């Protein structure tokens, strides 16, 4: 597939602050790519540079094979959904959607057909003559989508489009945007700081941190094989066990865990091999399970349960190893009685393939 969008060494600074360090990125046609990251990570700066709303200090932006680094927004053939939708308050819904078509000097009949068609697609054909302020938040969101897809731009940029909606509506809109993406086969670049939103919608996620790309890959890549502690923690709960490398045994890499016991890890291509420096092993809470008394496991440990919380489908256990290292794990909630109660000492275990070795040290979080 050819690249719809190609970003080469683009950077931007404001005075002494570098908002975006040299960044390169290729987006193939039809992809749903999410720029994920905390605030100040450079994701919005990158999006704005693509939209032409800020000009980068260096690098090149190619849209659909044309150099567009410093082209004005209106000549870039992009669509953009703003955070608060930016629907024109003085125009009707019909005129809002017709606006980009009029700018492209389409014939009135053509405009009418396209506007009615897109209103059908977003299931709001009856609001054509209303004004934006007369619509609910979810409806405004759908009109914003309709307005920026009606002229089939090369790329649709979305800047935290669901940020203003409540949780339930957000979940529903995620599915609608996904459906629209499948129907129209547009290339979408989506900015969010919500990792669940990113994982549920994206073909690929571009995780940004501190003005640069931290990791680029499918949601599965980022979740199961993070390349850094930052990625591991940003994508979900993670236990971080400080370890030291010991050697190889039975086809596993062996590390010395916090209590001195061995931790087995399936060898991976990317395993860091630092000459010096700290290493951690990351295990996701849901990959740890309670073991029966003498049940074998590739990795196992004794922990004392400190507390447990039932959060619906899963129960979360807060425990500590003999040396005091925190371990969090979750079990499916199968009955009202907990499988382990506070104060109890239990055995836990996890697969060697679920231990990910990362550089650095960090206290885990959940």
């Amino acid at each position, binding site marked *: 597939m050819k690249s719809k969008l190609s970003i080469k060494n683009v950077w931007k600074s404001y005075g002494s602050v570098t908002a975006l360090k040299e960044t390169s990125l290729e987006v193939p046609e039809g992809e749903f790519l999410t720029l994920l990251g905390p605030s100040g990570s450079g994701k919005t700066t990158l999006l704005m540079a693509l*939209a*032409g*709303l800020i*000009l980068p*200090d260096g690098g090149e932006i190619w849209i659909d094979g044309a*150099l*567009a*680094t*410093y*082209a*004005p*927004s*209106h*000549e*870039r053939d*992009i*669509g*953009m959904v*703003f*955070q*608060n939708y*930016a629907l*024109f*308050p*003085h*125009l*009707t819904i019909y*005129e809002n959607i017709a*606006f*980009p078509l009029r*700018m*492209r000097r389409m014939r009135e009949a053509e405009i009418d057909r396209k506007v009615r068609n897109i209103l059908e697609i977003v299931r709001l054909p009856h609001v054509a*003559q*209303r*004004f*934006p*302020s*007369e619509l609910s938040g979810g409806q405004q969101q759908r009109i914003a989508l309709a*307005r*920026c897809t009606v*002229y089939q731009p090369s790329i649709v*940029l979305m800047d935290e489009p669901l940020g203003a909606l409540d949780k339930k509506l957000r979940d529903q809109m995620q599915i609608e945007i996904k459906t629209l993406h499948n129907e129209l086969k547009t290339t979408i670049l989506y900015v969010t700081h919500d990792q669940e939103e990113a994982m549920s919608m994206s073909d690929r996620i571009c995780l940004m941190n501190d003005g640069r790309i931290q990791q680029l890959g499918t949601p599965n890549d980022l979740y199961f094989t993070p390349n850094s502690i930052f990625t591991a923690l940003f994508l979900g709960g993670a236990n971080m066990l400080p370890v030291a490398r010991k050697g190889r045994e039975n086809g596993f890499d062996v590390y010395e865990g916090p209590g001195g016991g061995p931790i087995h890890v399936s060898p991976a291509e990317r395993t860091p091999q630092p000459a010096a420096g700290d290493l951690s092993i990351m295990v996701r809470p849901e990959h740890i399970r309670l073991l029966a008394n003498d049940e074998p496991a590739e990795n196992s440990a004794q922990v004392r349960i400190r507390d447990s919380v039932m959060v619906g489908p899963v129960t979360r256990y807060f425990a500590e190893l003999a040396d005091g290292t925190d371990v969090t794990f979750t079990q499916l909630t199968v009955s009202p009685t907990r499988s382990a109660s506070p104060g109890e000492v239990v055995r836990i275990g996890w697969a060697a393939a679920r231990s990910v070795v990362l550089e650095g040290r960090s206290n885990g979080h959940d």
Partner: protein
Amino acid sequence: MTDSALARPAATRTATTGRKRDRMRGWALVPSVGFLLVVFLVPVSQLLWLSVVNAGGEFDFVHYERLFSSTLYVDVLSNTLKIALWTTIACLVAGYPVAYLLASVPPSSRSGLLIWVMVPFWTSFLVRSFAWMLLLGRDGVINQWLAALGVVEQPLKLMYNFVGVMVGMSHAMLPIAVLTMLSVMQSINPNLPKAASTLGAGTSHAFWRVYFPLSLPGVAAAGLLVFITSVGFFITPTLLGSPREMMIAQLIIIQIEEMLNWGFAGAISVMLLAAAFVIFYLFDRVLGMSALTGGATHGKTAAKKGLLGRLGAQAGRYFIACVSWAGWGIARAFAMIRKPRYDRHREQRMTARWVLGIAVIVFLALPSFFVVPLSFSENRFFGWPPRGFSLEWYEAYFNSPIWREATLRSVLVGLCTAALAVLLGTPAALFLSRQEFFAKTALMGFILSPIVLPNIIVAVALFYAYSHVGLIGTNIGLVLGHTVFTLPYVIITVMAVLKNYDHRLDQAAWTLGASRAATFRYITLPLIKTGLITAFLFAFVRSFDELTIALFISGGVATTLPRQMWSEALLNITPTLAAVSTLMLVFVAIVILLAEFIGRRSRRR
């Protein structure tokens, strides 16, 4: 009260007590509303009533018969409306680029530019008119420069005619037009033009189809304010015009000063008000907001409109489409001549905006300063160029008991007015910004009416009312009269500050055990202090500059500084006026710097 209320179990505190307490807080409105009723509504109604009764107190339209018996009054009225209309158009056309520039530059550059709009805004109309006399006169600055450049042989007639009045009036009204439009432009979501741009709209389309329609409420408000103020204006037309440019306000002054004909003055006032209303109605019908924005004033589905409205809307749509495509065409033509390249970094330029904006700002700020060199000259007359150097005109000012007394009175009256307006207005502003209640809009309308009604009408009404209670020629009379005009400004200013005030801070203080009084003293007051000081300074300067009320009420005894300048200007215009004007300019500069300093200090918090 708070303690006992808290001591009671929550369940026994019924809705009634809550409502009663709200009603009790409604007392906050009583001082200001009561004041306006007594010192504004009653006198004005009385004046209008006088126009329909004869000396015997019976219904009689004799004044109106006289009004229409000759063409004189109708001519003056049409003249007034013509001047006011042209002034409004000039202010909107010239003011829009300035407001647009101010709204689109970063805040740091904005405050620097804004000062040059604020200086003329705070400078007395009289000072500015004197400056224009110096510039436009037969031997004025402009004519001398044009002659020196060899552009003209005969001096142009720039003053004592329509041109002079238009220049002076536009200059007088421009700051208020700019500031009104700016406040609306600053509230436009900056993402909307950007959104238009991503949707394929070039600079021209993004401006004309999105920004311009959204800024129209500001244009309409500015137009209304300028028109209303112009219609009742007399300072500039008297000083810069000829009898052919006589305006209604001058006619009213003659009726009162020379003939004391109250009923007839009232009838002229009614005619003026009626004409203004008719014009507004037609404007709203044909060219109203709804027309240019294509159907919606506040983004609500438009109600059925009349034929005029539909025609206006259609015309508005064509207008927008024409200008936006014309702009697009020009941009395309330029692009064909010089092909734009997108491989180089080119900052977005706003050349046109800057050139237009700065030109108007120079027009606004520069003229007043021409009085300064004259005040230090040895000239015997008020004319250009200044010769030599002397301080005799300052000596003349400081040694004259009349000038000294007038200045002192103006300062005293100004301080009392500002204090009274802030004391009356603050409780009302607090209440109005927190409470939603029935008829709030109507009440706001009433509170704002003293600045919407032409000043001259209020001044005449007060003159009549005062003559019955012996307030003519007293400082108290002046303070009361000036407070009528400054009170609405104070209420607006304080309400604007309170809009950004988080009421949960008060609630937090209450839950922490502070009584209402303590909350106000330790939480609310420190946070809104800056706003109150600004309101105080504003009220002070308005009163210090005020001429209309002073003209009638000072009764020739208790003369204020503007009143003294006015009589001096009519009698014999000397460089002493330049000295006084310079002092006033310095004074205004100090007040602005003071306000800016206080504002900066509070922003740092």
